[in-house]
């Protein structure tokens, strides 16, 4: 019997061994692998989402620009259990055939995200009440409500931006994993930049569901729930009245207007044309409008104020004057002869007829080319510079400090830096330091390689208005303003030099190229520019600020292919200034206003 008693040991060993296999497999399932926990959560937990109202957008006077209206989606939850699904009743509820329902479920399943697929998007108001009432019988469906954008003032489309369904790409980049498929997100403009402020916080309640999809009790008594919060109101610096007026003035023309409050950097108006109305991109309209606008040859979706770049033309003479004065290469008594232009070797930069031997103030007023060609030479070729590169970089430093050749960093994205070439650029063309001011003379009068966005031009006007500094132009106002928008950017030109330059700009309006558009009672300082356009008519440019003392508004306007700066850009600028300062009174120049509003300039 000893032999058989040994067998009891074998039997015991076998029992322990087999039990260890069970424990081992359980360890794999429960501790090592985490896919079962995920699967379980997907099967048995459903998050009921409560979408908060998106924040309003209001202008500088508290006027509501953007608000919300509710829309409703019918969503289906997966895995979809067909057992006990009364499909006939459901077809009656949603007015579809069985085949349509099956097809929609299939589509929803293919594009589902987090176990949820979109069954009907934007249920109409009359269907909503009926479907909501009958939906309790179909626990695998639910209605999710959210708001769409509505516009009390249907303006500033590019600035406001729009809200639409989040894309796959955006979902992948959503590090916080805040969004679900089918949810909305700010796509451009302020809606995008201030998305996290405007969207608020989705409320989430987790429920247990059973194998038929019916919701049971709260998951963990609601301890994982997320409390929702409505979106915050976004107060912005736009003056919606001024914005509307600007859009009317520039209608039918190609170009843009940017107006800034110099003392704060707040953008008062940002107009771009051709454009579109923001309600065309409300969620319910987006589908039918987007393709047409995106493929329009006039490119109405482009925000020209921040992304189109132009040579500044004669408006740049203001900047050249300031740099020359600060560098000490010219002073208020410096005069250069202008013999119908600037001549050196075989090169001539032509000038128009004006009183001889201008000083700097008069050179601004009369826009003398020869004066600035000479000034440029003096700036670049000072004795203290070893070579042209040093002189050039010294000059370029002023431009960079003025926000040229780089993004200003405003609070809508897509801004272009414009162009101020590096010395290397000219080294490459002409050989290392084998060039001088003559080679780049066209930049002295704001032509050539130099390119600015209209916003950069407006910012220059604000900088002059402030006599030497600016704040990064921005829209946000009256709330947690990022520090980037409250720090002062000094440009390195002393205050006293501005007196001279501002005097010249004031004279432009009194007896220069702007005399035709001056407004009694408002001391406007301005400078016209007419930029040669190799593709057609000249671009018409004007920068200005007003009043001369204690300025309230700085502004720049570009009208493409329109001719002289004084003909189109200057009138629009001064009408805008008039509107802003004399807010509630009608224009003193109704004829001019009418002409601007009604003339279309074909591209």
């Amino acid at each position: 019997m000893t032999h058989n008693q040994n067998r009891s040991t074998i039997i015991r060993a076998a029992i322990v061994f087999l039990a260890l296999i069970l424990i081992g497999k359980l360890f794999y399932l429960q501790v090592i692998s985490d896919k079962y926990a995920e699967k379980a959560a997907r099967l048995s937990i459903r998050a009921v989402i409560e979408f908060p109202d998106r924040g309003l957008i209001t202008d500088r006077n508290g006027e509501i620009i953007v608000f919300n209206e509710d829309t409703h989606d019918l969503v289906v939850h997966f895995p979809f259990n067909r057992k006990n699904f009364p499909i006939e009743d459901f077809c009656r509820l949603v007015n579809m055939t069985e085949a349509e329902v099956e097809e929609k479920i299939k589509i929803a399943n293919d594009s589902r995200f987090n176990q949820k697929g979109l069954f009907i998007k934007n249920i109409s108001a009359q269907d909503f009440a009926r479907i909501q009432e009958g939906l309790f019988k179909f626990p695998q469906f639910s209605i999710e409500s959210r708001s769409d954008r509505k516009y009390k003032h249907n303006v500033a489309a590019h600035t406001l931006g729009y809200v639409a369904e989040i894309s796959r790409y955006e979902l992948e980049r959503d590090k916080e994993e805040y969004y679900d498929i089918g949810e909305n997100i700010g796509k451009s403009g302020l809606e995008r930049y201030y998305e996290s402020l405007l969207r608020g916080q989705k409320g989430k309640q987790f429920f247990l569901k059973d194998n038929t999809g019916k919701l049971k009790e709260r998951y963990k008594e609601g301890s994982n729930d997320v409390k929702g919060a409505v979106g915050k109101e976004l107060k912005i610096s736009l003056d919606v009245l001024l914005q509307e007026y600007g859009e009317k003035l520039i209608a039918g023309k190609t170009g843009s207007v940017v107006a800034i409050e110099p003392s704060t950097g707040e953008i008062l108006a940002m107009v771009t044309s051709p454009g579109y109305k923001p309600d065309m991109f409300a969620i319910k309209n987006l589908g039918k409008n987007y393709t047409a606008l995106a493929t329009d040859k006039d490119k109405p979706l482009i925000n020209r104020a921040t992304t189109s770049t132009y040579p500044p033309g004669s408006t740049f003479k203001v900047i050249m004057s300031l740099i020359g004065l600060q560098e000490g290469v010219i002073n208020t008594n410096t005069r250069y002869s202008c013999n119908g232009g600037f001549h050196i070797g075989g090169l001539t930069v032509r000038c128009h007829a004006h009183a001889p031997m201008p000083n700097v103030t008069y050179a601004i007023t009369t826009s003398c080319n020869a004066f600035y060609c000479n000034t440029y030479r003096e700036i670049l070729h000072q004795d203290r510079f070893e070579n042209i590169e040093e002189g050039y970089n010294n000059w370029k430093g002023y431009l960079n400090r003025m926000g040229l050749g780089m993004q200003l960093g405003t609070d809508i994205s897509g801004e272009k830096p414009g162009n101020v070439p590096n010395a290397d650029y000219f080294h490459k063309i002409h050989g290392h330091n084998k060039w001088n001011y003559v080679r780049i003379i066209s930049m002295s009068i704001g032509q050539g390689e130099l390119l600015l966005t209209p916003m950069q031009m407006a910012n220059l006007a604000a900088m002059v208005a402030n006599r030497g500094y600016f704040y990064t132009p921005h829209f946000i106002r009256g709330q947690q303003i990022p520090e980037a928008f409250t720090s002062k950017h000094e440009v390195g030109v002393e205050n006293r030099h501005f007196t001279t330059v501002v005097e010249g700009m004031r004279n432009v309006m009194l007896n220069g190229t702007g005399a035709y558009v001056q407004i009694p009672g408002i001391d406007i300082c301005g400078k016209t520019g007419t930029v040669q356009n190799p593709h057609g008519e000249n671009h018409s440019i004007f920068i200005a600020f007003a009043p001369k003392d204690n300025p309230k508004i700085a502004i720049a306007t570009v009208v493409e292919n329109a001719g002289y700066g004084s003909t189109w850009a200057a009138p629009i600028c001064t009408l805008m200034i008039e509107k802003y300062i004399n807010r509630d009174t009608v224009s003193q120049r109704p004829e001019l206003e009418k002409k601007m509003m009604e003339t279309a300039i074909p591209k």
Partner: protein
Amino acid sequence: MSEKIYGQSRMDGVTLLLYLILVFCGFLAIYSSSHGSSNFSFDFSTQYGKQLVWIAVSITLGAVLFLIDVRFFEVFSYAVFGFWIILLILVIFLGKDVNGARSWFAIGSFRLQPAEFAKFGVALALARYVSDIDTDMKSRRYQLITAGIILLPIALIVLQGDAGSGLVFFSFIMVLYREGLSGTVLLIGIVAVALSVLTFAFGFLALVAALIIVGGIITAFIYTNTKWLKYLWLIVLVCIGFTKSVDFGFTHVLQEHQQKRILVMLGLLEDPQGLGYNVNQSKIAIGSGGFWGKGFLQGTQTKGDFVPEQHTDFIFTSIGEEFGWVGSTVVIIVFVLLFLRISMLAERQRSKFSRVYAYCVLSVLFFHFLINIAMTINLAPVIGIPLPFFSYGGSSLISFTVLLFLLLRLDANRENELDSYY
């Protein structure tokens, strides 16, 4: 001291304690799976309410066993066996048809499954026969009768359409092994199972090719020994013949859904919506329990009724989900302690009848335990057998309890069994 004086031992407290622990854990699991909410409440009309009644009935019956003369069972063991065999036959004709199987007697709301109790009959009959002083364990007659005692109920249960419950009786091989069944027979059995599985997995022809190649390789090493070569190729031929018959049986005798079920359980066929649905849900529930579990009454899959048959055959999922790996392991350890204790009780019996009976109890309980838990974690096919002391249902709880308590009764009396047959 008193046991010596009266020649009477007491009930084995360790076994009783392990039994009570398991029954209590089982009740918690059933409470959780049939309660469906996080809040405590009690209601006798529910499954856990009924289970509590069954627990009371079982323990009462176990106590009653101690009032019956211990000789009764040995004397009437064949009668008990015969009684349940007759019921197994009757249920084929009178049983309630559930999904094509007739394994239940339904009398009003009361249901009785004879297959659950037949184990008890077989255990008694086997113990009686093997321990009989007249039995010659070397004889062909012995082999045929022991095989008959085991195979007869299997045949009847398969006829009822409940193959899974029939498989349980193969566990008695453990008893026979303990009592001297040749290890070679066990080895042949294991090889046969392995060959069958490989046939399902790779097909008949591939297996024949593999067998011939293996035979060829071995031949290369022992080609000088012609006697061994003869045996080798005889074995290969037998294996091929066996494989062919398995293949034939699989494709021609089994129905398609049975073939599928075998393939799914062997992991050769994925079927998460059909046959594999239960196992998939079971794995999700257990796997989501993690290390510590989700907590009592906090199982999301348990509360949402995601695991079909959870309160009966898949009751272990409730433990796995709510008490995690730690809880599952503790339950397994308690079971293993019970098994080792039974084995110890068996070996301390002086009467062969008691020892054989004890091993019968061990083999039945262990087989149910092993296959049931293995099934919930996809290590064994889904055959509908309960987890002893856990699964909901009066038949199984009562039969396991009676099975175990009779062992305790015999053990308590072991001093008096002294020299019965010497």
